[in-house]
């Protein structure tokens, strides 16, 4: 009996201590699962695999990563939503879910999730094979307009980054291309290298090393100004100033759990990933790959996510590729 009392006392004591730290000591009690919504080798995958060991160190448990691709990430997103809301299954996601509702891909988006950390924001770049006759973005656009529907653009499926940039172009200028979907930005670049597609807009991260090697040529960065990781590549507004109304826009990478996850788990995860994203080695790697560090969570992340959703949803609506109007879901115009 004495021993039982003693254990009880210790438990009570540790609970008071834990309560001070937001019950963080109880979580995680076992290994966690991280579901990456894009294929291995793509930008989301690399970010996930870089931040995870740092977060594992902070959590003291392993995070088992799996790639669950398909449907521009809708498979992973609906899958994680269907898992118990205990914080043990995390979604390593990109921007895509914010467009699922209007595209009719899924009934859910990041409203159903709690942002553990929106780690960084990327900048898109339009690339062509080095053999391509197009030297500037204007060349590409002129050729597309001359041969409507003939030029092959790589995408990662409806609502993915290449598709969204393509839709933006459609609303700003006449831009009719054939979109060929691949499993992710990595396979998209592979197809570009093999000349199976003629151009593809991707995150700078997926293209940087190929541009450096000279196999791939960057025509334009989808940003208000040039970015240091793509020296000498003009911003898209230099050619088409009307594009400015959408910018800054770009893919982002984050870690999410179901919104109804207990606060203790949220707090522990948020603290761990905050620490991970603060690591200078991680930040250096992210910036080297053309990203802007964000490292925000909770309400701050929600503000960013909501604004992002309204920009993208209305771009898609204006491009006429939505299945449902953003109005139906109460998504305001930006």
């Amino acid at each position: 009996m004495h021993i039982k009392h003693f254990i009880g006392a210790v438990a009570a004591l540790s609970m008071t201590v834990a309560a001070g730290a937001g019950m963080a000591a109880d979580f995680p009690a076992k290994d966690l699962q991280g579901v990456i919504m894009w294929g291995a080798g793509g930008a989301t995958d690399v970010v996930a695999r870089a931040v995870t060991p740092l977060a594992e160190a902070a959590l003291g448990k392993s995070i088992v990563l799996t790639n669950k691709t398909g449907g521009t990430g809708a498979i992973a997103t609906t899958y994680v939503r269907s898992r118990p809301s205990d914080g043990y299954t995390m979604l390593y996601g990109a921007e895509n879910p914010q467009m699922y509702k209007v595209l009719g891909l899924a009934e859910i988006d990041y409203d159903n999730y709690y942002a553990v950390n929106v780690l960084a924001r990327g900048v898109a770049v339009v690339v062509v094979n080095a053999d391509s006759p197009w030297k500037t973005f204007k060349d590409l656009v002129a050729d597309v307009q001359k041969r409507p529907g003939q030029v092959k653009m790589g995408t990662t499926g409806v609502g993915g980054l290449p598709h969204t940039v393509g839709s933006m172009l459609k609303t700003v200028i006449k831009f009719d291309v054939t979109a060929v979907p691949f499993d992710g930005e990595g396979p998209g670049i592979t197809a570009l290298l093999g000349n199976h597609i003629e151009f593809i807009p991707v995150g700078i991260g997926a293209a940087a090393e190929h541009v450096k090697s000279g196999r791939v040529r960057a025509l334009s960065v989808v940003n208000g100004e040039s970015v240091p990781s793509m020296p000498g590549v003009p911003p898209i507004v230099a050619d088409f100033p009307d594009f400015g109304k959408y910018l800054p826009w770009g893919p982002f990478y984050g870690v999410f759990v179901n919104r109804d996850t207990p606060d203790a788990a949220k707090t522990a995860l948020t603290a761990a990933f905050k620490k991970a994203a603060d690591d200078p080695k991680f930040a250096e790697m992210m910036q080297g790959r053309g990203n802007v560090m964000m490292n925000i969570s909770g309400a701050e992340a929600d503000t960013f996510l909501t604004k992002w959703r309204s920009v993208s949803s209305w771009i898609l609506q204006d491009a006429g590729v939505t299945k449902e109007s953003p109005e139906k879901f109460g998504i305001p115009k930006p």
Partner: protein
Amino acid sequence: MEQSLSYFIMAWTDPYLIFLTAAGTFAGIYVGVIPGLSVTMAVSILISFTFTWDVNEALAVMAGVFLGGVYGGSRTAIMINIPGAPAAIAAGFDGYPLAKLGLAGMAIGVSTTVSFFGALFGIAILAAAAPIVSEFALMFAPRDYLLLAILGIILIGALSGESLAKGIFCGVLGVLIGTVGLDPISAQPRLTFGSMALMGGIHYVAAMIGFFGISEVLVQTLDLKKKIIKQKVDKILPSWSVILKHLPLSLRCSAIGTIIGALPGAGGDIAALMAYGHAVRSVKKPTRPFGEGAVEGLVAPEAACSSAVGGAYIPMMTLGIPGDAVTAVLIGALYIHGLKPGPMLMIETPHLFWFTVGNLVMASVFLLIFGLTGIRAFAKMVEMPPALLMPIIVILSVVGTYSIQNSLTDVYWMLAFGIFGYFLKTYGFQIGPIILGVILGPIMDISFRRAIITVRGDLGDFFLDLLVNPISLVLTAATVGLLIGQTPVWKRYAAGRRAKKEAAAG
């Protein structure tokens, strides 16, 4: 050159690196043996484990696990007809019948030597011709992946057993299982019946473990008192004459394995299946009929899946593009260690390339050593009383399936497939075609649609592309040739010609 050599032997001079490679290979073999524990998973876990290590040390242990794991999967396929990994499925087609004949020791001996040979072949191509092969791999268009998958699925004919109709039924069933879930292009649900659990599809490893593992257990449980086959383990190492006899086939299948391994959209499992198909078609007089313990039917997939390891490294080292699921994870590991995998990797960090080559060679040597030393104990496993062995297999199957993606749904699927598979086997349906359909069906699906989108839905352009592109033309010719070769008209014609030739000769 001198510098390359110094990087190459780096892995051979540091005792700690030698130890790590050995440990990795050893662990890899056992990861491979257990169904559901995949090499991809093991290497992913190692990323976190080796986070603070030096990059060379991390790569050494990962290369060992990779090579050992690919090899280990065939052990259980041979001994108990349960492939430890998808790449080992084809090894069981003829390996298990060999074990039934009491030749498990010989089968593993052959599998080990051939794996060693195949691994070295793949590494040699990696060392000598990586840039050329990766350029070749890039040329594969979506339509070429479609043709490759069709070539593979024709193999159903060879795997059908007594009835082709039953084989085709099983193949189509496999393709159907593979289509469950959200459609990869438009994200529309297919065959999900509104169920959330079906949205993510049915994992093909769950299907594999169920159809092979549980159904085999059920079959054997019905005959617990069956006489246990005594395994001959006195002559494990195949003689030189056996090795020399199968050398041409090993070479051809290693070449197939290296190229398919280097393709970004296909890995060791497909390589092994294609090589098996190649053996069935090209070997006229096998030691025993295929499916009944032909040594050729074991040599071919084992050479191919091991050489696919070297092949998978090719696009990874030269372009930063993964050649299969494991190299995709290895690329992540390189990023995390501060390297930049991509086309500049070999220019900026040339030592990494030659270190990897040297390291893989060493892992192959350890594969041979560990592979040949543990056989006796392993072969004894088959001699265990079924009442003891079967429960162990069931437990491993459940744990292995659960660990694929920590999903209980997968376990239910696995058990259901196991029971279903038992009835299929009872009524003379073969399991091989189902797995073929599950693996190749989704590739056919997405590649066909990609190819059709590329030509804007124009079927005329689609067929024209098949003829004007050199790779597509070769693959189309092979497919059409195979299909015609299977028709009764052609078979009669060929038989007639052979008879005439023999009459003329004799």
